[in-house]
C-alpha cells in the first residue's frame, strides 16, 4: 500500500461538515496549544467527538454484560481515538480531516485495476472462505475464536485508522429529513435491543420473554456451518466498509 496523492478527500477536508471530524476541527479552532492550560484542553478535545462517547457507552454496557474483553477493547479504541484527536489539536493542523488525507492508504494503481486486482480479490475471497470455515469450526467464546476475531478486527480497524483504501468523490450534503429518518430507525432498533437486555432476569441471563438479538441468533450460531455462514456475512460487511 502506498500513500495517496492529493485527491477528492483533501479537497473536501477543508470544508467543515457536520460529522465528528468537523467537530474536532472546531475544538482545535478554540484551543491555544501554546499555553499549558491550552495544551490540557487540546488533549481533552478528543472527548468532544461523539464517536468517542458512543464507544465508551458500548464499552460500559458490554463490560457489565459479562464480556470484559470486548469492553476493554472498546475502551482502548475510545481512548486511542480521543488521544489521536487531541494530538491533532495540539499540532494545530487545519482540521481533523486533513490528517485523514495525509494518512490515506489508497491502493496502488497497479492493484486497483486489471488482472492484479482480480488476483487480489480472488485471494481475499479464498482467504475469507478459509477463515470462515476454520474459525467457524471453533466453539463459540473459546480462546481460539476470540484470538482470530480480535486479530482480524484489529487489522481492519488499523487500516481504517490510517485512511481510506481508495480515493472517493467528495459527495454532497445528505438530505436532512432522510438522514434523520435513518437515525430515528437505527436509534429505535438500539433502544429496543437495550430494552430487551434490561428486562432480562440479569444482564448475563437470557430471557425468553424479552429476547435480545444475541439470544435469537443462538440457534444459528450453535452449529459449525451456521457460524461459518455468519462469519462469511461478517467478513463481507467488513470488506464493504473498508472499501467505503
Amino acid at each position, binding site marked *: 500500500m502506498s500513500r495517496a496523492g492529493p485527491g477528492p478527500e483533501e479537497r473536501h477536508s477543508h470544508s467543515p*461538515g457536520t460529522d465528528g471530524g468537523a467537530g474536532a476541527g472546531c475544538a482545535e479552532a478554540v484551543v491555544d496549544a501554546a499555553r499549558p492550560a491550552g495544551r490540557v484542553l487540546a488533549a481533552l478535545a478528543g472527548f468532544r467527538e461523539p464517536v468517542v462517547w458512543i464507544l465508551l457507552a458500548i464499552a460500559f454496557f458490554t463490560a457489565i454484560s459479562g464480556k470484559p474483553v470486548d469492553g476493554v*477493547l472498546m475502551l482502548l479504541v475510545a481512548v486511542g481515538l480521543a488521544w489521536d484527536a487531541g494530538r491533532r489539536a495540539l499540532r494545530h493542523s487545519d482540521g481533523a480531516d486533513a490528517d485523514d488525507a495525509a494518512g490515506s492508504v489508497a491502493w496502488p494503481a497497479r492493484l486497483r485495476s486489471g488482472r492484479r486486482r482480480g488476483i487480489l480479490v480472488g485471494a481475499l475471497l479464498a482467504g475469507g472462505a478459509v477463515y470462515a470455515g476454520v474459525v467457524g469450526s471453533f466453539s463459540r467464546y473459546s480462546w481460539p475464536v476470540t484470538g482470530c476475531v480480535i486479530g482480524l478486527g484489529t487489522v481492519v480497524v488499523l487500516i481504517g485508522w490510517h485512511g481510506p483504501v481508495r480515493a472517493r468523490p467528495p459527495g454532497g450534503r445528505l438530505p436532512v429529513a432522510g438522514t434523520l429518518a435513518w437515525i430515528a430507525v437505527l436509534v429505535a432498533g438500539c433502544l429496543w435491543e437495550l430494552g430487551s437486555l434490561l428486562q432480562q432476569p440479569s444482564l448475563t441471563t437470557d430471557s425468553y420473554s424479552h429476547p435480545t438479538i444475541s439470544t435469537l441468533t443462538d440457534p444459528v450460531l450453535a452449529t459449525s456451518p451456521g457460524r461459518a455462514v455468519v462469519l462469511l456475512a461478517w467478513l463481507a460487511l467488513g470488506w464493504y*466498509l473498508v472499501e467505503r
Partner: protein
Amino acid sequence: MTSHDVTIAGYLVVLAGIVLLQVLATRTRAPIPSLGDLLTRAMRSRTGRVGVLVAWAWIGLHFFAR
C-alpha cells in the same frame, strides 16, 4: 400476544423500517440517502471511519469472542 411476540414484532418493525428506507432511497426519487451513502458520509472523517469499523469488529466480538 405474549411478551416474546411483542419483542419479536419490535425487531421486525425496525427491520421493515430499514428495508423501507433503503427501497425508497434506491428505487424512488425521495430525498432519502441510501444506507451506503450514509455510511460513506459517516466514514469521511477519521473518527467516523474508525467508529464504524470498530462497530463492525464489535459485532464479531459480541457473537463469537469471550
